[in-house]
């Protein structure tokens, strides 16, 4: 059925409603506050987006298969703490391992990613082989990883990092923080996995129709385990980045980021019922949330009221997004 021009415009506005509103908000903020459109402000914004994007890309895999990952926040905190304990200056007074020479930051990154991936694989195994719903599986892992983190750190905050670690945040390449480069690299790798490997295609098929995927010979269980392990490794990277940025970490680092990441995915168009979602969706979602926060801050909106604004945006955006798929049937 041919659509009239007006219908097409209406469709376009509805399908891209959130982005359009965001652009209007950004332009309005830029026009009314003079320090908004400055390179510094945007570099700062991108740095804040960097680790959030890494988390969202990890969680996107889980959401595309129709799941979620509540353990993300605690995994971030755990990885940040483990990395912190291995990267303190040798002469730092409150050192966690007194007398131990700090390790190479890259080695530490590898270690925390591997540890987290193991925990993620455990979560994934419960989901894939024992059919524990993702919501519950990841909830259980959230508790476990928090407990392990508390025992490991004794609940003491960490600091006194070596400069080669904090340089991940302060160091720049072509005038842009390494954190941003890392996020871009992770986005590129994720795009590759989603589009150019079997694993990515299997992930979409499982999310779209798990029975059909199984009948078509897709190794559903193995794929699920890999997705949750990979996501956990991404959280480790995000925790590592957060530690470098803050110059310290505590067990509560990353708390609540899992919800923000799920919200970002949903906002950007990763279908929470599974089967749909791209790297660009995660990017758009994270960008919308961060831009919203910054713009509201510039407009002088009460910081506490910003939460209300974010909630409203999620309500509206998801209602519009769901509408797209319902209307198609």
């Amino acid at each position, binding site marked *: 059925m041919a659509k009239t021009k007006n219908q097409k415009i209406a469709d376009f506005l509805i399908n891209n409603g959130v982005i359009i509103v965001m652009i209007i908000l950004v332009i309005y903020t830029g026009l009314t506050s003079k320090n908004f459109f400055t390179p510094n402000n945007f570099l700062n914004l991108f740095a804040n987006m960097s680790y959030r994007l890494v988390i969202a890309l990890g969680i996107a895999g889980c959401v595309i298969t129709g799941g979620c990952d509540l353990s993300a926040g605690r995994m971030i905190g755990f990885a940040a703490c483990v990395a912190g304990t291995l990267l303190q200056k040798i002469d730092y007074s409150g050192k966690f391992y007194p007398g131990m020479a700090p390790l190479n930051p890259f080695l530490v990154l590898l270690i925390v990613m591997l540890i987290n991936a193991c925990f993620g694989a455990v979560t994934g195994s419960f989901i894939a082989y024992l059919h524990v719903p993702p919501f519950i599986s990841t909830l259980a892992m959230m508790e476990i990883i928090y407990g392990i983190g508390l025992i490991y750190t004794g609940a003491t905050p960490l600091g006194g990092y070596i400069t080669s670690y904090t340089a991940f945040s302060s160091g720049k390449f072509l005038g842009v923080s390494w954190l941003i480069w890392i996020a871009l690299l992770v986005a590129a790798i994720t795009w590759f996995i989603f589009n150019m*490997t*079997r694993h990515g295609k299997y992930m*979409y*098929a499982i999310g779209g*129709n798990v029975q*059909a*995927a199984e*009948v*078509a010979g897709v190794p559903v269980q193995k794929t699920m385990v890999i997705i949750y392990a990979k996501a956990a490794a991404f959280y480790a990277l995000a925790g590592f980045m957060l530690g470098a940025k803050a110059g310290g970490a505590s067990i509560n680092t990353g708390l609540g980021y899992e919800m923000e990441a799920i919200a970002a995915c949903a906002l950007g168009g990763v279908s929470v019922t599974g089967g749909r979602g791209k790297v660009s969706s995660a990017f758009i979602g994270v960008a919308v949330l961060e831009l919203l926060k910054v713009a509201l801050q510039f407009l002088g909106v009460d910081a506490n009221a910003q939460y209300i604004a974010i909630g409203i945006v999620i309500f509206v955006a998801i209602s519009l997004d769901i509408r797209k798929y319902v209307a198609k049937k």
Partner: protein
Amino acid sequence: MAEYKLELKGVCKSFPGVKALDGVNLSVRPGTVHALMGENGAGKSTLMKCLFGIYKMDEGKIFLDGQETTIKDPDDAMEKGIAMVHQELQPVLARSVAENMYLGRFPTHNYGPLKVIDHKKMNEETSRWLSELGLDYDPKALLSTLSIGQMQMVEIAKAVSHEAKVIIFDEPTSSLSDKEVDFLFKVMNDLRDKGVSMIYISHKMDEIKRISDDITIMRDGTYVGTWRASELTTDEIIAKMVGRELTNIYPEHNHEIGEVVMECENITSIHEKSFRGVSFNLRKGEILGFGGLVGAQRTELMEGIFGIRHLAAGTVKIHGKEVTIKKPADAMAAGIGMITEDRRGSGIVGCLSIKDNVGISVYNKFLKSGFVLDHPSINKVVNDSIDKLSIKTPSMNEQIQNLSGGNQQKVIVARWLANDPDILVMDEPTRGIDVGAKHEIYEIMEDLAKEGKAIIMISSEMPELLGMADRICVMCDGKLTGEISAKEDMTQEKVMSYATMF
């Protein structure tokens, strides 16, 4: 008193593209059991759904006690004294027997606007109705602790508790044991003595002869006639159910049948009531039809062989070598493909493109340096299939859910062609697709057989079964009851008689 308790006259009902009912009549005498018979898809369930207000009939009249009436919805039907015991039970397993009986009409104590459920009354009433049927279940027992047969009884008690004067039984015995069937018939006899009219849908000839007073037969949505049960023999009933002309939309058979490629022996489900002890073999270039009534466990059998369901026993040999199949991927490795019956449920991945729907089963065969997808080669395979099977679509990137049923089915066929199995199981390959597309699917099957593929086709459509198969295995109630090899023996009557050998 009117001659008939309930009369349906000239009922017509169309669904998009199909006329499901065309001038059907049904006249039920008071205090009788009236059997409603017909093949799969004859329109029995549709007719009952029209009577019960689940569907709205396009044309036709309903008379209750000689008075014309209309039925808006199931609530309205129950108010007018019509109840239905559904084929697929929909109990709330986690709640008690009493709560299931009184769901939606809980007795309450009323304190002004506040209504509090009167559990005592509900349990007592439930006990009373159950004992009326000679049942002694605890009203407080959770429904999940009952057997399927007992749940069926609760369902019947519920119908009786509505003080229904007409009760519809839609294949109530399909999941009952012999003892439970005996009990059900005793209950039905009691109800008959109390003057209740019952409409009874079943495929089981011996049961029909045992319980029914009158028989109405339907065929392809039309009314064949009504007889006293004593007037008809089983053979006559079958002849009236199937008596139709075969139209020739099937391609000529030009394929050569070769050596045995698959031998299945004693294939048995882990479930007692499902398929058991089924043995058959399959030859190269052969189309082996599997006939039977709905519920004969043909789909379950094939899904068992393909690794979707669990087997308690049985061996599968491919080219003389025994294979172990625990999951579909194992079956594919052994050279078996399967197009499932439920295209939406386990066939297509609706939100993905045609390309991905074809690709998911073969992506591991199209890799560069071991892990990077070779998109150009995949595109070529998919585009070739689109041409070969004439799939109508703007491009291979179109979402499969935007295609018609026939084109979706062709995409699933393309998936398996890309995978190149020796053996292809096609479960109801033309269900829900239009005649033109059906014909194309038949041609594809003929071409595949010519190429030497062995095909197993499950079909509930008699003409399709007779028109396409080189040999027919017929199942009934989980067992293989007959095999028809000679072309001249392939008649509707023969298939039907094997299919009803309970």
